[in-house]
């Protein structure tokens, strides 16, 4: 057959790239046209993804494009289409499309709208590349490109110093993760001789011990990549700052796509973590642990820590950012508890309701003329009914209230935790309670009560181009829990690759109670607890009562446990200090002549040089040759 259906994937991937390039080269001056091109590209990608999802059963690969073939390093660009990537394609292009549309309403009078849409298209392209990557290097390439395009988007308002700092921080923190990632790729490649996921999987299935002593280290190094993108402790610091970008960007990057990439990658490479666990000599103290255990605890720690931080934030976007961190911690924990399918399930539902929450927050910020402090809002429910209803729905889903989608996916994770590790189950329960507490703190303070600010008093509902995407996301927030997504994903990880039998609607609705009743009931109980605590503290509060009651603890939570300060100090003490020393050596010892005046008095220097020039050349040449001979001699004498 000349054209096979799986090659449509190339179009899905390349259309956003064409849009980005086209806008950059030709339509920078025509804002509306640029927006149309970008929205059209992602919409067509979405429709094609839908087509593939329906028309292409099972798994397939597109034709491949050769990239580098030298000796034992062969890298091709080949698009993988299995249940995992087909689902993710829908999430990325579907949620992405709604955010594209919403953006046009949100930013329509920005003077750099074309640049915005070009960056957005580039971002979509990069993210789709991660989803479709069939090998480690291809994934790493798009991984980096997501870093770059998110840099462009976070720093969209680059004239603000805070935005310029935030995008830099996001990129650099991600780079630290990527440093581990590339080393992990090297370890895997050297041990297993391939970079293709399907080949690696086959090799490890046949010889689970083939990674040898590097199994644990290799897995953790690859996980470093996820730690950066999915903002896991200790690389979580970039995500809250990244809220400096326009709000739709926050919705796209920090809810549905970029941060999900880390979890997706862990699911994609889950076979690595099923290798026989082993540690090299130097890490013998880790004996008895597996890489997955460590990942689970990092995820759990992130979930708890971020939830605690969220409790004391006042910026509506920052609260959502920390809640994203916390939910990502859940997902990573699920992967660590050998449950990639609950993780993917939660990723999917979370993409819907978190995007909706962010877009809702954007609508609020838009209406309040860029006021982001929840204590200066209040009483928005009557003024912005659509935004408020959808926001409330999203908050309930996030808290895991039945029958909204968040309940089902969170329950899957709780059940997984209950089965594998009781301490982590307890931690997850605590986080569930905290989640409800801080989300309803936000809801009560911002949407109920009386107006506490000038801006909030004059707020009114956003235009249809912004509310319709909210409505669409609300539908999925309600429905995605009972659409059978979990069975579809479970099929992807099952041995045979077949989908499990679908349940009827009523069965699906009550499935968690049938499957793991304890987890389901305890989860709901934690939610109720959090809700009543939030009502008690914030039901009718005009100011936050917690700082008074808890003093320094609340202060620490507000300051994010001082991680940013610690890192800054650490960087100042290490890299910056070493750099100064290196620079000093370069200037004064290696550069050697010590002629430059310390205060840059070049006149003195010039005279000095004229005096010294003839003699100096010889001295210098002599020193250089002497040094050279010394090196040659030393390297032979041992």
């Amino acid at each position, binding site marked *: 057959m000349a054209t096979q259906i799986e090659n449509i994937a190339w179009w899905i991937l390349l259309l956003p790239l064409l849009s980005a390039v086209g806008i950059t080269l030709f339509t920078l001056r025509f804002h509306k046209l640029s927006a149309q091109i970008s929205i059209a590209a992602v919409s067509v990608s979405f429709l094609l993804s839908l087509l593939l999802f329906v028309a292409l059963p099972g798994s397939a690969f597109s034709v491949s494009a*050769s*990239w*580098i*073939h*030298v*000796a*034992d*390093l062969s890298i091709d660009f080949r698009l993988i289409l299995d249940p995992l990537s087909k689902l993710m394609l829908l999430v990325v292009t579907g949620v992405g499309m709604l955010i594209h549309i919403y953006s046009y309403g949100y930013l329509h009078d920005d003077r750099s709208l074309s640049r915005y849409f070009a960056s957005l298209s580039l971002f979509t392209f990069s993210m789709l590349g991660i989803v479709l990557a069939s090998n480690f*290097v291809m994934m790493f*390439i*798009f991984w*980096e*490109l997501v870093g*770059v395009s998110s840099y462009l988007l976070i*720093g969209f308002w*680059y*004239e603000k*110093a805070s*935005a*310029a700092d935030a995008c*830099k921080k996001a*990129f*650099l923190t991600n*780079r*630290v993760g*990527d*440093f581990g990632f*590339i*080393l992990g790729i*090297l370890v895997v*490649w*050297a041990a297993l001789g391939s970079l293709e996921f399907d080949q690696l999987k086959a090799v490890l299935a046949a010889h689970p011990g083939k990674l040898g002593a590097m199994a644990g280290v290799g897995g953790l190094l690859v996980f470093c990549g996820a730690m950066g993108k999915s903002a896991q402790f200790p690389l979580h610091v970039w995500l809250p700052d990244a809220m400096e970008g326009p709000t739709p960007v926050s919705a796209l990057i920090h809810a549905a796509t970029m941060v999900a990439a880390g979890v997706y990658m862990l699911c994609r490479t889950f076979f690595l973590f099923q290798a026989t666990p082993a540690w090299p000599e130097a890490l013998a103290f880790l004996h008895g642990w597996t890489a997955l255990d460590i990942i689970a605890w990092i995820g759990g720690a992130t979930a708890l820590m971020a939830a605690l931080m969220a409790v004391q934030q006042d910026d509506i976007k920052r609260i959502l950012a920390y809640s994203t961190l916390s939910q990502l911690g859940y997902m990573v924990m699920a992967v660590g508890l050998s449950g990639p399918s609950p993780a993917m399930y939660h990723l999917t539902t979370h993409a819907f309701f978190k995007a909706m929450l962010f877009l809702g927050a954007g609508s609020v910020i838009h209406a309040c003329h860029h006021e982001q402090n929840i204590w200066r809002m209040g009483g928005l429910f009557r003024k912005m009914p659509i935004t408020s209803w959808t926001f409330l729905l999203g908050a309930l889903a996030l808290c895991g209230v039945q029958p909204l989608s968040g309940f089902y996916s969170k329950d899957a994770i709780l059940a997984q935790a209950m089965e594998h590790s009781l301490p982590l189950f307890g931690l997850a329960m605590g986080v569930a309670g905290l989640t409800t507490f801080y989300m309803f703190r936000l809801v009560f303070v911002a949407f109920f009560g009386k107006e506490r600010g000038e801006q909030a008093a004059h707020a009114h509902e956003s235009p249809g181009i912004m509310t319709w995407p909210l409505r669409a996301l609300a539908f999925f927030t309600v429905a995605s829990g009972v659409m059978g997504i979990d069975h579809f994903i479970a099929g992807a990880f099952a041995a045979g690759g077949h989908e499990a039998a679908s349940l009827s609607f009523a069965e699906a609705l009550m499935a968690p109670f049938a499957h793991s009743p304890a987890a389901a009931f305890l989860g709901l109980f934690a939610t109720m607890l959090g809700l009543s605590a939030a009502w008690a503290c914030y039901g009718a509060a005009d100011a936050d009562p917690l700082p008074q009651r808890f003093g320094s603890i609340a202060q620490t939570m507000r300051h994010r446990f001082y991680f940013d300060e610690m890192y800054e100090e650490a960087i100042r003490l290490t*890299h*910056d200090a*070493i*750099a*100064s020393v*290196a*620079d000093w050596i*370069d200037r004064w010892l*290696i*550069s*050697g002549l010590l*002629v430059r005046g310390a205060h840059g008095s*070049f006149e003195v*220097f*010039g005279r000095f*040089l004229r005096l010294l*020039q003839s003699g100096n*050349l010889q001295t*210098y*040449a002599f020193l*250089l*040759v002497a040094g*050279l001979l010394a*090196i*040659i*001699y030393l*390297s*032979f004498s041992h």
Partner: protein
Amino acid sequence: MLLALILIPLLAAIAVALSPRTSPALPRLLALAATGATFVISVMLFLRFDIAGGMQFEQTMAWVPSLGLRFHVGVDGLNIGLVLMGCIVAFAATAVSWDIQRDEKGFYSLLLAMIGGILGAFVSQDLFWLYFFHELALIPTFLMIGVWGRGEDKNYATFNITMYLTLGALIALSGLILLYLQMPLADRTFDIQAMTKHFQLHPIAAGDQNLIFGLLMFGFGILVSLWPFHTWAPLGYGAAPTANAMLHAGVLKKFGLYGLIRIALPMLPAGSQRWLPVLALLCMGNLVYCGWVAMRQRNLNGLIGNSSVAHMGFCFLGIASLTLVGVTGAVLVMIAHGLLAALSFGLSGYLYSQTGTLDIPRLGGLLRRLPFIGAALMIALFAGCGVPGFANFAGELMVLFGAWKSGVTGHWMVVAAAWAGLIIGAVYMLRAIRNMLHCPEAEGAGEWIDAIGSRRWPYALLIAALVLFGVAPGLLTDAIKPSAEAIVKMASSGKANAVAPAAPLLKAASTH
């Protein structure tokens, strides 16, 4: 065709020198025509190049048969990409020289001589011509920095770069002469292929190999700013006129690396075994130490210069790995970095023409005021910290992969190189973006004018080449691979010899 590649710029140089003073626009037009022609020829060569391998487009002429001197040019996978890159950079460098207002005749004729020398050095298959053309390119470099250079540091920089590079060239020359003397009297020749073949069949004694390789490594190394002989580079490039910095940092500097791969590796396999571990250690200095130094730079040219020194570490690491992947990656980095260095220095030259300063704290908000130049600079800085989509990433990635599996370079070196490339590089590049391109506009920004129309295309050309080879590095690697394979095989043949104890230095030297 290769001969034309050398002769066009050289003849144009003479024509410019003889052109009448009454037509001041003529030198620039002639230079553009000549470099444009070489650019077209190089593209044709590249398209017609057969990736199956072997020396192609060869031309030979007898010259002094008694000394074994011939004029012999040719390209294989090793230099076809370099020649293409050189011609692109030469064209762009000529085009951005519109800001030269003083003695254009002298400037363009020296520039053309430099270009002819560079191309000659890269296509020569004869040691004598190889060296001769390199010197032919080097001397105009010194003169141009001295005459058309800028900044208060100019004299010091000229003095520094002249001394270093002359010294490096002399050390390399002594190595080359010793190499020549190792040929039996009857078949003495300067022909590189003949010499390589001979030394493969009749290897030089290990001790002599060690001496010669050492001389070549340090001689060529100084030309490429091998740590700790690197301080001339940031200084010299800071003072050089834009076109010079582009051509030297971009193309001419790669001559040392080219010499190492073309001459030292295959002719001195035992010497390679002995010295490559040392090279690998020294290049850590380039990668990590010079990266740190770059972090401290407040001047844009100082930053680009130091980062360019740091990038040379990837080339050295790839060569030192002595694996096919690593060496191919090193050649790819050479080409990619050539385009990138030219782009960066070209842009900083434009900035200087507008702002009169390259002091980073005095620039700010350039993206708003100079959207094209700012965006292009951002692209250059991103390419410099190894973002995929640009050729540098592909090359550096290959070097890491090659070095990881090599027996010569330890794993810790790869870890350090990855740290240098991914973290240190990103730190200084992103700081520069933040301080120069982002943030509110600096004082006096109102008078700066963005590049428009024809002043844009040199930058666009360089970016296009970077992206082309970044998206499809196979265009280059497929061509490089066969030649690199042959060289790695020849150099690895020294493993057996290396086991024999190396003769002490003095004894080795006294055999001559």
